[in-house]
């Protein structure tokens, strides 16, 4: 019944937004703008990185302020954080100059720039639900104690500046943008305007309601196909004004991702994790310079690579010697690391099913983080040592070095249970485990269906959907209790809270995908078409090869 009740809808929105905006002017406030993707990961990544520097989100030292117009239910790509002015810690300092002068401390902007999903960090000078409200708020801020101090630092004639207008999901004409700028003329910056690389870049952001794909929700045309002026079509949810901190606004999220993109790597496999998600995982795992990180299912080493880029020393293990050795001496895990000038990663061929027995008995904590993507049988099956038969024959001594031991399938529930057990043993206290687990089920309960361990505390789970039913979760856990050798069986018994039922939701995904595909309409037809295509390409290749061979034979004979 979406008849012309458009105007009613706009009116309704306006009335619910007449709420006062709260910006505590005696505290240091910043606005974090996120990239519009991986929505579920944004807060988790931010929390992990802040925690690494000793800043606890939700504490009085780092409060989350409600955004203007808090009635919308969608996740918005903004977060407002508020700090007490005098806040500083051994690893950070709110004042940018203080932080740059010291070797040990970093500024908030530089800390947050580690987050892949953060697009910009802005020192907030004013907020509102409309531009007028934002202007009023900024005027108040300018007259406040803290405001005067900050403004004083940036307003003198030596500081060049510019004011960027950023309108989310809407376009305004240049004239309209200039009109918006004029609202803030009262600031009266004494320095010259400079468009390229000014000393200070100010920004006014006009936020509108966005869909999960990042496009504006309201249409530009009403039911009679008349174009509605921008300001009425997409009323602002919030307007923010402030000074951009740090490097400025990245268009897609932080820089490294392009530099280390999978496209540039020498050695890839079907299960290589994309650079963006690998960096996010390394942030969730709090990986940084000088740490020791392990990946027990290293595969092509894509996750370890991002950890090494952060400055950690890495060790990866895998049961498959072919993947550890790579394709040849120029295409292997080590060449990927060498490509970026990173220290050679340590590689060991071992079986995780019996981890505790491959390594020194005492559960001596070794690793600061374990970051991994276990095989769950969709594109790469999991294997473990052991024969499929009951009484395997012993290997004759002289053949031992070349013998490739038989492996048997490794059930997903055991993969996960062993992973958690290994993490509990070998992580240092407070160390983090970050792993990927698929799910093919609409009803998945994070509290009841994820594997658990007495020594590991659940921190977060971020969901990445692929299709309505298929998706994967990136789960973060933290070691909080020392591992007691004598309690091993007890630990293993409680891994799956709802027993086999929970484990089942993560297992046999390949079969479930196939079954679901078969139920779709025209499955048989499409399968036949694909088969036909494959046959054609195969035949074409064969023919090409024969021609090439006969050509070279002719050349030889001449």
């Amino acid at each position, binding site marked *: 019944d979406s008849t012309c009740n458009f105007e009613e809808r706009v009116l309704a929105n306006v009335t619910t937004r007449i709420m006062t905006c709260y910006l505590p002017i005696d505290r240091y406030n910043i606005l974090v703008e996120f990239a519009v993707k991986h929505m579920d990961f944004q807060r988790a990544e931010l929390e992990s990185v802040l925690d690494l520097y000793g800043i606890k989100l939700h504490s009085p030292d780092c409060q989350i302020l409600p955004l203007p117009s808090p009635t919308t239910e969608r996740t918005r790509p903004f977060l407002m954080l508020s700090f007490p002015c005098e806040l500083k810690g051994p690893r950070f300092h709110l004042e940018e100059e203080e932080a740059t002068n010291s070797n040990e401390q970093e500024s908030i902007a530089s800390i947050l720039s580690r987050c892949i999903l953060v697009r910009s960090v802005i020192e907030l000078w004013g907020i509102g639900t409309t531009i007028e409200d934002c202007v009023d708020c900024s005027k108040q801020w300018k007259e406040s104690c803290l405001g005067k101090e900050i403004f004083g630092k940036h307003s003198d004639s030596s500081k060049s500046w510019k004011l960027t207008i950023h309108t989310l999901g809407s376009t305004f004409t240049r004239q309209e943008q200039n009109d918006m700028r004029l609202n803030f003329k009262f600031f009266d910056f004494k320095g010259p305007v400079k468009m390229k690389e000014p000393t200070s870049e100010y920004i006014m952001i006009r936020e509108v309601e966005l869909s999960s794909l990042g496009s504006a929700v309201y249409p530009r045309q009403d039911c009679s196909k008349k174009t509605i002026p921008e300001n009425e079509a997409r009323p602002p949810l919030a307007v923010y004004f402030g000074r951009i901190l740090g490097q400025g606004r990245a268009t897609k999220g932080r820089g490294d991702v392009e530099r280390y993109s999978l496209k540039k790597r020498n050695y890839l496999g079907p299960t290589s994790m994309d650079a963006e998600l690998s960096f996010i995982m390394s942030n969730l795992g709090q990986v940084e*310079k*000088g*740490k*020791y990180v392990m990946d027990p299912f290293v595969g092509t080493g894509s996750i370890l690579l991002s950890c090494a880029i952060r*400055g950690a*020393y890495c*060790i990866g293990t895998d*049961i498959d*010697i072919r993947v*550890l*050795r790579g394709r040849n001496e120029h295409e292997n895990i080590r060449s990927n690391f060498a490509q970026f*000038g*990173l*220290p*050679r990663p*340590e*590689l*060991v*061929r*071992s*079986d995780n099913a*019996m981890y505790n*027995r*491959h*390594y*020194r*008995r005492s559960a*001596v*904590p*070794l690793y*600061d983080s374990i970051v991994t993507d276990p095989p769950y049988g969709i594109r790469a099956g999991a294997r473990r*040592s*052991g*024969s499929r038969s*009951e009484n*395997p*024959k*012993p*290997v004759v001594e002289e053949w*031992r*070095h070349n*013998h490739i*031991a*038989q492996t048997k399938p490794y059930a997903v529930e*055991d993969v996960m249970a062993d992973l958690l057990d290994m993490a509990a043993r070998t992580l240092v206290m407070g160390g983090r485990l970050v792993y990927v687990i698929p799910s093919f089920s609409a009803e998945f309960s994070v509290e009841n269906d994820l594997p658990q361990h007495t020594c590991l505390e659940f921190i977060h789970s971020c969901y990445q959907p692929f299709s309505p039913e298929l998706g994967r979760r990136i789960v973060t856990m933290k070691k909080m209790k020392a591992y007691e050798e004598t309690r*091993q069986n007890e630990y293993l018994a409680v891994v799956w809270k709802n027993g086999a039922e929970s484990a089942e939701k993560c297992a046999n995904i390949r079969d479930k995908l196939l079954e679901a595909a078969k139920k779709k309409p025209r499955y048989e037809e499409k399968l036949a078409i694909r088969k036909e295509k494959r046959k054609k390409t195969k035949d074409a290749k064969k023919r090409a090869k024969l021609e090439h061979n006969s050509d070279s034979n002719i050349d030889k004979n001449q």
Partner: protein
Amino acid sequence: MRLLTHNTLRNNSQAAKGEGFPLKITATEIRVEEAPVLAEDEQQLSFVKGILGMLDWSALVVAASEMGLDKALPPILTEDLTKDEDFLRALFHVLMNVHLVNGVLTCPVTGREFPVMDGIPNMILEEEECETIRI
């Protein structure tokens, strides 16, 4: 394979009954690699300080000499040494820059050999050595 890794490996077959540590190194090819330019001193020092607590020192001393680094390390790790930055740098070099490229690791109890090829130790057990009961 680095000495740091060797310090954690052991023979896990049933026959060794949990005593298969430390593994004796028979080196055929060793390579000493200087860390690449990107690695910073501070990064290396904080790393060494972090792992110092979990090293089995006597096993490390023996392994270092098996790798041709006789007398590189003192027999006992004293409190003073842990605070000496030059010592820590030297320790980092021993732990992380000396690689066993080809060789064999032998279990002290059963004599079972684990080959190291192209820097990768192969710790996989044969079928009959594996536990049949899940532990």
